[in-house]
């Protein structure tokens, strides 16, 4: 029964179709911008040129393999050179290439013209998340993966946007020329959204430029495209394109939110509040390396459970979170997170997984520490 090929094939097909949302996409999508459509056209043009050449060359080879074989009684011919033919098949491909280079050059020049932008956004790659800063607008935030660990480790069913979902998408207005200034805080990343045909490397110490003008509101998803370490596969990009009015509204809300966040620093916090906030912030910012259990992945990512720093003096603990540890993957979170989040995370780390230090660190402590450094 199992020997029959049809049984195998149907088994295979069942297996393949059983996974939800699976698709058989074969080709690039034209995308949502003028640039992405011209890139798509270039892609299809060069593809069809290759198909035609392939049909001619492979056709001749297959014809030859069918007809010119010894079993059909063929006697071999003796020709072995022809300058005319050699020149012909040097010149004809050259002409095709020149014809192909013209539209490619036009598109490339267009892609490189990032002048006259209406909105500038600084995009910074971190291991393993993206940071967006709206230049001149006082709005900035991190964008983290939200896919639960349970889905990644196959303990829960995977959602439709598995690994392509974030807590805070990059929001841009429709029909507006947006310029991206792309850089990195650690290793090289690459910011890629296929529907916008934008892929640009984020290089530490250098700023790359790119731009887009999206024509339709909607959600566009992408991923980091340059190997950037352990969680390279887990730092997606989501771009939410809103109408101009909605964008203006959103921007105002974000500004207010930023003000409210600042006020949180001076608020009086209880340990319970800090622990609750800390657990969330820890999961988003720390768990990828130090693990949800606090046991880390030694030796690259040390354990926090029972560690000397997390159970030792408060100053040392604040210090390593704020300043990081140079030469290792431990980033300086002082510039990445608010005082509230740092305080909450430290409080959580000192009291979770059996680290029963019992004390708490307030946002004011963190602020004082930072000010003392300056």
């Amino acid at each position, binding site marked *: 029964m199992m020997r029959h090929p049809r049984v195998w094939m149907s088994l295979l097909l069942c297996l393949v179709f059983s996974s939800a949302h699976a698709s058989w996409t074969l080709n690039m999508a034209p995308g949502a911008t003028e640039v992405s459509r011209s890139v798509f056209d*270039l892609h299809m043009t060069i593809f069809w040129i290759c198909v035609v050449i392939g049909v001619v060359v492979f056709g001749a080879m297959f014809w030859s393999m069918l007809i010119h074989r010894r079993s059909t009684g063929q006697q071999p011919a003796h020709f072995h050179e022809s300058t005319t033919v050699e020149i012909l098949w040097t010149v004809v491909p050259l002409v095709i290439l020149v014809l192909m280079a013209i539209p490619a050059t036009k598109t490339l020049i267009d892609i490189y013209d990032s002048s006259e932008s209406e909105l500038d956004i600084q995009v910074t790659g971190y291991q393993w998340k993206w940071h967006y800063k709206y230049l001149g607008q006082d709005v900035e935030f991190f964008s983290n993966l939200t896919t639960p660990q349970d889905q990644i480790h196959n303990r829960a069913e995977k959602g439709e946007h598995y690994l392509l979902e974030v807590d805070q998408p990059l929001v841009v207005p429709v029909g507006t020329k947006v310029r991206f200034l792309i850089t990195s805080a650690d290793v*090289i990343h690459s910011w890629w959204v296929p529907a916008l045909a934008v892929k640009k490397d984020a290089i530490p110490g250098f700023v790359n430029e790119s731009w887009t003008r999206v024509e339709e509101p909607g959600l566009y998803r992408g991923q980091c495209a*340059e190997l950037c370490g352990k969680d390279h596969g887990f730092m997606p990009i989501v771009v939410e394109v809103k109408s101009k009015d909605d964008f203006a509204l959103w921007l105002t809300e974000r500004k207010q939110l930023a003000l409210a966040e600042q006020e949180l620093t001076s608020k009086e916090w209880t340990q319970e509040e800090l622990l609750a906030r800390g657990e969330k912030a820890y999961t988003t910012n720390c768990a990828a390396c130090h693990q949800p259990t606090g046991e880390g992945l030694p030796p*690259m990512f040390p354990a926090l459970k029972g560690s000397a720093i997390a159970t030792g003096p408060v100053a040392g603990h604040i210090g390593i979170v704020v300043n990081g540890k140079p*030469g290792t993957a431990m980033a300086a979170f002082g510039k990445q997170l608010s005082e509230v989040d740092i305080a909450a995370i430290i409080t959580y780390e000192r009291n979770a997984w059996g680290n029963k230090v019992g004390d708490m660190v307030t946002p004011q402590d963190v602020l004082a520490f930072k000010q003392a450094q300056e």
Partner: protein
Amino acid sequence: MSAVIDTDHKGHGHAGDDHHHGPAKGLMRWVLTTNHKDIGTMYLWFSFAMFLLGGTMAMVIRAELFQPGLQIVQPEFFNQMTTMHGLIMVFGAVMPAFVGLANWMIPLMIGAPDMALPRMNNFSFWLLPAAFSMMVSTLFMEGGGPNFGWTFYAPLSTTYAPESVTFFIFAVHLMGISSIMGAINVVATILNLRAPGMTLMKMPLFVWTWLITAFLLIAVMPVLAGCVTMMLMDIHFGTSFFSAAGGGDPVLFQHVFWFFGHPEVYIMILPAFGAVSAIIPAFARKPLFGYTSMVYATASIAFLSFIVWAHHMFTVGIPLTGELFFMYATMLIAVPTGVKVFNWASTMWRGSMTFETPMLFSVAFVILFTIGGFSGLMLAIAPADFQYHDTYFVVAHFHYVLVPGAIFGIFASAYFWLPKWTGHMYDETLGKLHFWMSFVGMNLAFFPMHFVGLAGMPRRIPDYNMMFANFNMVSSIGAFMFGATQLLFLFIVIKCIRGGKPAAAKPWDGAEGLEWTIPSPAPYHTFQTPPEVK
């Protein structure tokens, strides 16, 4: 034994007793040998062992990618697997296989008694097991082995690397020294030890392509050495070649690496071009079409390979004019490559073909390598490359030029010359089975990668969205099939060594060249008196 050819004594020269001794006995034969056939054999076995090891790592990768979600390995280990798979296949499997073929065949093809520098030949082989033992041992070190991709971009490979990176750097140095010595040996042999009458333009194409490959190696391996030395300095001696914080530039790393890396791509394919140019005429029973243009096309490809490196870096933000230059130069490579493909097709045209295993692999080589060439042409179009770059489309592209390109070229060569090496014919039925299983498995594994790449799947990720699930499963099934099939090859080779139909001096009726004028198996010492080439 003297490697100097004394042309005055040709025909009646081998009177001395030392001309008749065979190989030494026992293990020391292999440790101390300076015989090009012994060394060639060791290179080939070493390469096959590395092929199986690198292949096993590919199986781990494909097993993890069989379904979305993390099942078998964690991301850190996954990255070590992709890195080591690449390094082992490039430096351990493909390059030593071609050096092995060069050792065995170049002296036989040009009528030389041995390689020009036999002791250096021994040393350049024995460096390799040392280098790879060191590199593979990093997997067992604290912090794990190299996990930054076979291209090891800084600063991921410097500031953020595991501690074992220093061993990796030392291993790369050893491999580089080995390759440079091997290449110098090939150049010295070809330029000095050709039989009287064998002018450059009478050399078999395999010799020509290897001569050009050897010059490429000598030109670029020192660049790689410079690249890893700068890494070493950055890691241990406080320099900042690749760190912007100290006035350096991470992109400098990529320029230096790809100035090595692009010619390296041709180092891995040119000898295969040469082998296929010997095999297709043999089984078409018709001379190679356009010998002269083949030589010029190879030389053009080698030259162009030095001025296209930044096409690997279209997204790093090089200026528009640079981008245009590298796009045009890269597109130009299609011209000489096209000439080669057209010449092979014309060689087949109106021949009298039979399809023994070497021919099957060679024809598949021409067709599938051309498909890899097509995707290469697509990748050359810079604006389109912004969409393809670092996706599975690139993975599909370079596996199409390396697996049915380099590796099928090696298989074709192995089957073609096995009768000469062992004195026995291999099992033709099993050989054909090996071909068809490899052919189907390889296409099943790598063709769907074009699709997932175009659909937007980045490379080097251990987990992916469900929209890529179907084709990844197909790829994995194909990869398992291709991988398992290679054990059959091992069986076929062992069977052929142990016995089989005795091979004639010239087992292929259409084959040409000096190697077929000596008995099968080739005696331990050959061409002590140089043959006369007319």
